[in-house]
């Protein structure tokens, strides 16, 4: 019974932390004049910095994908790769960030390219 409850709490934390990041993003979009690209950059770089000072790892332990799926999680993975690489040597420290995120970046570029070539622009419905 306790095991089931613990498993359920993992989902709750994933929901709350993941939703929380999106709420922060929404407030930034509504209440400030920051444009979407700037907000994305701020999120990713914050993830890098928070992981570098050791604050993001506990969040990932707590919320799992709730912390890794939002963009700060991308920054977290970049920094984590760098830190793990740094233990092995100079070259690994430089290769670490891209190694850790290469799957996502490679697919985003390659699949994004194919999709962009296949589909034609559409104006959003309801306008």
């Amino acid at each position, binding site marked *: 019974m306790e095991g089931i409850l613990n498993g359920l709490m993992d989902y709750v934390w994933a929901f709350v932390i993941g939703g929380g990041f999106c709420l922060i993003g929404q407030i930034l979009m509504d209440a400030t004049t920051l444009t979407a690209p700037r907000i994305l950059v701020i999120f990713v770089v914050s993830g890098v910095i928070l992981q570098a000072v050791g604050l993001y790892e506990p969040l990932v332990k707590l919320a799992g994908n709730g912390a890794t799926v939002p963009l700060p999680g991308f920054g977290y993975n970049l920094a984590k790769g760098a830190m793990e690489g740094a233990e092995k040597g100079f070259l690994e420290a430089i290769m670490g960030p891209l190694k850790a995120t290469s799957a996502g970046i490679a697919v985003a570029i390659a699949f*994004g390219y194919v999709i962009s070539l296949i589909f034609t622009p559409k104006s959003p419905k309801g306008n």
Partner: protein
Amino acid sequence: MKDSDEKEKKLRKDIGKAYGDYVKQFTPSPAYVSNGIKAFLVGGLICTAAFWLQKRLQDGGMSETDAGAFVTILLVVSAQLLTGLGVFDSLAKFAGAGVIVPITGFANSMVAPAIEYKKEGPVLGVGSKLFTVAGPVLVCGISAAVAVGLIYWMIGRIQGV
């Protein structure tokens, strides 16, 4: 001569300010609360679904890192497909940051401008516009992370000696 210049400057400033106030009357203030709730719920739902998939893959014997990569790939592919089909815009209109802050927003930010600039060709149009938003994100993120790696490497060397 100088006096009239200053007068004109002041007049312009006043007109600018008056216009700003005038515009403000007609600018609807964003619905902070309902936008926030929608972003929270949709964003939370995406992360929970990702977590569920991650657990299923790990139960199937996949390592945590591999499962994480597959979850990311799936989110990126679905977001880009929905962008191509023109559905993502409607989703973003409803959920705002709820779909933009997760990795889905990053995936969308690549395809959306690339499709718009298709007319400029597959290399200079699509090829470069894929990085209109993703470029700054990757440049800033990777630079910061490489700096972190180098700092950690140096600390390790100093402590090791």
